[in-house]
């Protein structure tokens, strides 16, 4: 086997100089180490690319104006601004946006290569349908007609819930919001997006602990941290520009602690690195807390004032003495003590976690264990502290807040009648009309009762395949899923590849709406009823997008959509018109050329999403922030002087009330040291005022300047009257606010008056260390379903199986019952590479990125490699316990410990040894294809959110 294709002259074996040396362990992989052979490339890149590249050239035409357009990178949640130079409609240059306080001009590999998206030849260029197994070009009109007719026929036969779609965290807020609204007006909750399989356990975990499902501080605020724990986050590859702030903090003396089963590139920069067994984070956290409680390092006064139920955590933690922690996690007493002491001695400290902490069968337990650690140290609600949850996609936070979620409405309004009535009013439609759009037969709730489909969470993206494949009798809806649309979502990010292939093949209709064909176009052997629709990238449509720190940055449109691509909003409009509900759904918007303008859509969001403060960020305010970026301080994100003096960059939500109230946005959540009108706050009163006779409200703690000095419940009309503040409402506000709470009062008056008195509209309560509405009120360790330590399942068993969970039977115990660890001795974990994003289709179609990583691989420890008789660079089979197999290259490295292998999850286009190149539409295959790691991943879902398990499963590696 030839590992490095040499181009003769370019690589003389006697060559000196670093640019010619194999430079890293990944170096044997084509492209990653050496100047790759031109011959290998010539075969891959068609002549057309060369032509196009020439046309795209950065030579300005001296006669035409060069326009500078500010936009935001689409490849992670940091939110890096960039300046696109456009001439005659062509994106000819990309300049750093030094003024942005978030990135200061910086980018990672993906961000620095953005311009290629404006020239890509690898797109789906026009609508296509499959005829007899071959792609055939059709017109947009024909596509909408045919898809619409098929959807209406399926609706007629099987009801609206037989159609399920994945929306997108890469759509702008306006696009993602329209996706959720589209599902509602179609009459179903069967929609979902990337957040389900990314941070759903985070959102559920933190929202239930202290109020909002989001990063509490910001990337910038890390500058103020004195200690930083990163657990299950590899920011150096997943959020590279975040490392700018992290390394700056470290240079200022902060201690950087990385806890991860893998010695990541982030770990390479740490002061302390702790390797532990994948899947044991709860034990790890309780092990740290054990030392903290043992040495009385906890912040007792903070806990008394602001935390409910810590004594229950203490009871659980007591079981996790150093011996037990070592038995379960593999980390010894000294390392645990060192980390605990570092966190105790260096406050404020921040806690960063990512997918390593979320994608588990007990991911929501991990998240809450992290929270409890931070609460015990008094690190939440302070600058330099916080739960700095780095989200994945550019707008995954926004899509979670107001986008296509199956279990809530925009702004996290519940799927109960109250939530629907609120949004019906905002949308200007009759609630009964909307309710009639839904399935009328009731579904099983799994506890012997039934529920109305309108009020029942839909099927999640992690489980859509079971919605298709599961026996109809077991699915808690009228029929199986029969039609699926992937609207900006790659399927290879979801587990259980071989079953997914069968699910694709069983569908009556498959629609892929995306800039690129994605693996959805090629994984299956479908012959008919399959459509590809070209949807524009973020750079071809304007709109707001919410970075991880909750700032809503406005993206200008860089270029018109390429080829026959259409923006998300236009597609939503065209399909809704065909399906017959466009008039109602789009009545509040300004429509220009079939395209609802993003400004008018955002204004509707502003009028409805009171609960999370998506109301103050009018398009005008956001655009003004983007225009004045350089006025914002890099550490505080606060404007100093200028027209926006005192406001926080891009008004991080909550930005309460109407835009006219000029709330400055909230940089650090729950920070009592500031007035509410300066972005201050406290924990949310969202779970009542007392439980079992114990108060849930804050004691002796309130945000600066609050006139109620102590805990208080959420504001509503009754509380205003009780406080004697009701008459401060205007007559118009009174008329609207009567009988309402702060979240449903469309006048914003209740919020205005509360804030005038320095009070937080959502009340002032304690954070909950005990979340009684979760399966595990205090987080407990439970062994993964596919565990290498089956001996521990007796002590730490998983959950009982459930008959109905998000409409589907869901197994835990019956999977864990079998011990696979002898046949499949290695832990299989997965993660990101810096060059690619998500399912990878877009980035693998960018030649500048694709050149850098051309092969899918598995990292394996030298000892495991020797045991399996595998050499570095050798092609191997990685086999999962459910039968999926990957034919990939072995990278022998100490980056992973003994017993653990790692694969990156961005590859696709190969399936169990076969290259699917022939199945792509001509010229639209990505430059780099490879096995999807998820072909070999397994069953396993979180018991709160249906998050999939991708970080701890089993496998074996054998030579191919």
């Amino acid at each position, binding site marked *: 086997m030839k590992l490095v294709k040499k181009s003769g002259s370019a690589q003389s074996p006697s060559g000196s100089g670093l640019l010619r040396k194999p430079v890293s362990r990944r170096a044997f992989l084509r492209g990653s180490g050496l100047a790759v052979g031109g011959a290998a490339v010539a075969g891959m890149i068609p002549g057309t690319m060369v032509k196009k590249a020439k046309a795209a050239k950065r030579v300005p035409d001296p006669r035409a104006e060069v326009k500078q357009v500010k936009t935001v990178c689409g490849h992670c949640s940091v939110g890096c601004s960039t300046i696109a130079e456009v001439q005659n409609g062509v994106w000819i240059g990309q300049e*750093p946006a*030094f003024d942005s306080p978030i990135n*200061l*001009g910086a980018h990672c590999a993906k961000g620095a290569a953005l311009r290629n998206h404006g020239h890509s030849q690898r797109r789906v260029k026009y609508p296509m349908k499959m005829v007899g197994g071959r792609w055939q070009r059709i017109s947009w009109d024909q596509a909408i007609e045919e898809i619409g007719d098929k959807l209406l026929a399926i609706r007629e036969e099987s009801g609206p819930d037989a159609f399920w779609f994945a929306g997108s965290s890469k759509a702008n807020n306006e696009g993602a919001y329209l996706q959720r609204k589209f599902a509602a007006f179609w009459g179903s909750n069967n929609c979902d997006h990337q957040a389900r399989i990314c941070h759903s356990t985070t959102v559920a975990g933190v929202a239930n602990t202290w109020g909002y499902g989001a990063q509490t501080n910001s990337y910038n605020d890390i500058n103020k941290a004195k200690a930083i724990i990163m657990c299950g986050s590899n920011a150096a590859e997943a959020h590279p520009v975040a490392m700018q702030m992290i390394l*700056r903090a470290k240079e200022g003396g902060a201690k950087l602690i990385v806890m991860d089963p893998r010695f990541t590139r982030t770990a390479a920069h740490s002061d302390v690195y702790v390797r532990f067994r994948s899947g044991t984070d709860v034990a790890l956290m309780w092990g740290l807390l054990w030392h903290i409680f043992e040495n009385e390092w906890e912040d007792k006064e903070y806990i008394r004032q602001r935390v409910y139920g810590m004594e229950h955590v203490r009871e659980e933690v007591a079981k996790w003495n150093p011996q037990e922690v070592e038995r379960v996690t593999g980390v010894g007493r000294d390392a645990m003590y060192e980390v605990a002491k570092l966190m105790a001695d260096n406050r404020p400290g921040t806690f960063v976690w990512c997918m390593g902490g979320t994608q588990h069968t007990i991911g929501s337990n991990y998240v809450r264990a992290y929270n409890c650690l931070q609460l015990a140290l008094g690190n939440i609600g302070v600058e330099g502290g916080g739960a700095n949850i780095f989200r994945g996609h550019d707008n995954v936070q926004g899509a979670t807040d107001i986008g296509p979620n199956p279990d809530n409405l925009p702004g996290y309004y519940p799927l109960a009648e109250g939530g629907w009535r609120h949004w019906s009013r905002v949308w200007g439609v009759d609630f009964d009309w909307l309710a009639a759009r839904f399935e009328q037969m009731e579904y099983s709730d799994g506890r012997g009762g039934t529920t109305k489909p309108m009020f029942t969470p839909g099927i999640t993206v992690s489980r859509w395949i079971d919605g298709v494949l599961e026996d109809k009798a077991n699915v808690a809806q009228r029929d199986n899923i029969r039609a699926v649309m992937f609207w900006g979502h790659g399927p290879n990010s979801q587990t259980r590849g071989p079953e997914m292939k069968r699910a694709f093949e069983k569908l009556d209709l498959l629609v892929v709406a995306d800039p690129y064909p994605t693996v959805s176009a090629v994984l299956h052997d479908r012959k008919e009823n399959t459509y590809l629709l070209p949807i524009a990238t973020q750079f071809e449509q304007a709109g707001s997008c919410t970075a991880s720190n909750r700032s809503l940055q406005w993206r200008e449109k860089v270029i018109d959509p390429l080829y026959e691509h259409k923006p998300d909003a236009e597609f939503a409009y065209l399909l809704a018109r065909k399906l017959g509900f466009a008039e109602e759904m789009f009545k509040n918007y300004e429509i220009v050329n079939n395209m609802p303008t993003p400004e008018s859509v955002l204004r509707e969001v502003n009028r409805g999403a009171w609960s999370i403060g998506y109301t103050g960020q009018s398009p005008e305010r956001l655009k003004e922030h983007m225009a004045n970026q350089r006025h914002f301080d*890099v550490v505080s994100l606060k404007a100093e002087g200028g027209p926006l003096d005192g406001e926080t960059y891009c008004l991080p939500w909550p930005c309460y009330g109407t835009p006219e109230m000029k709330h400055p946005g909230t940089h650090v959540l729950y920070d009592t040291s500031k007035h509410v009108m300066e972005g201050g706050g406290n924990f949310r009163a969202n779970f009542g005022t007392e439980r079992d006779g114990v108060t849930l409200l804050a004691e002796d703690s309130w945000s600066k300047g609050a006139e109620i000095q102590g805990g208080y419940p959420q504001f509503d009309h009754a509380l205003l009257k009780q406080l004697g503040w009701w008459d401060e409402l205007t007559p118009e506000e009174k008329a609207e606010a009567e009988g309402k709470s702060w979240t449903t009062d469309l006048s914003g008056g209740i919020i205005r008056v509360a804030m005038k008195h320095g009070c937080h509209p959502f009340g002032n309560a304690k954070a909950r260390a005990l979340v009684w509405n979760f399966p595990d009120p205090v987080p407990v360790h439970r062994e993964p379903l596919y565990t290498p330590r089956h001996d521990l399942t007796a002590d730490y068993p998983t959950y009982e199986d459930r008959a109905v969970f998000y409409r589907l039977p869901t197994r835990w115990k019956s999977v864990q019952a079998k011990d696979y660890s002898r046949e499949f001795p290695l832990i299989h974990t997965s993660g990101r590479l810096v060059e690619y994003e998500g399912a990878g289709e877009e980035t693998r179609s960018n030649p500048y990125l694709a050149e850098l990583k051309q092969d899918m691989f598995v990292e394996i420890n030298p000892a495991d490699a020797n045991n399996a008789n595998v050499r570095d660079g050798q092609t191997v089979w990685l086999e999962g316990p459910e039968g999926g197999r990957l034919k990939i290259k072995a990278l022998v490295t100490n980056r992973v410990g003994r017993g653990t292998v790692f694969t990156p999850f961005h590859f696709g286009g190969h399936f169990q040894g076969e290259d699917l190149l022939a199945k792509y539409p001509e010229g639209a295959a990505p430059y780099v294809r490879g096995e999807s790691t998820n072909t070999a991943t397994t069953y396993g879902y979180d018991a709160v959110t249906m998050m999939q398990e991708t970080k701890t499963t089993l496998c074996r590696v054998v030579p191919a």
Partner: protein
Amino acid sequence: MPYKAMLVALAVASLSLLTACEQEVVFHEPGVYKGKHDETATQEAAERRQEQLRERAMTGMTDR
């Protein structure tokens, strides 16, 4: 052999060419740049941009 004869003829011809144009032959000066002039490489050009590049570095390379 016509081929060999041709070579000889060519050699003779080129020799005579050399002798015929002595004034126009450039002697090789090792280490001196032989390429085209670059307007932006001059002292004046470098001085002109010096301040602008310094400002650019202060804007783009510092931590702010």
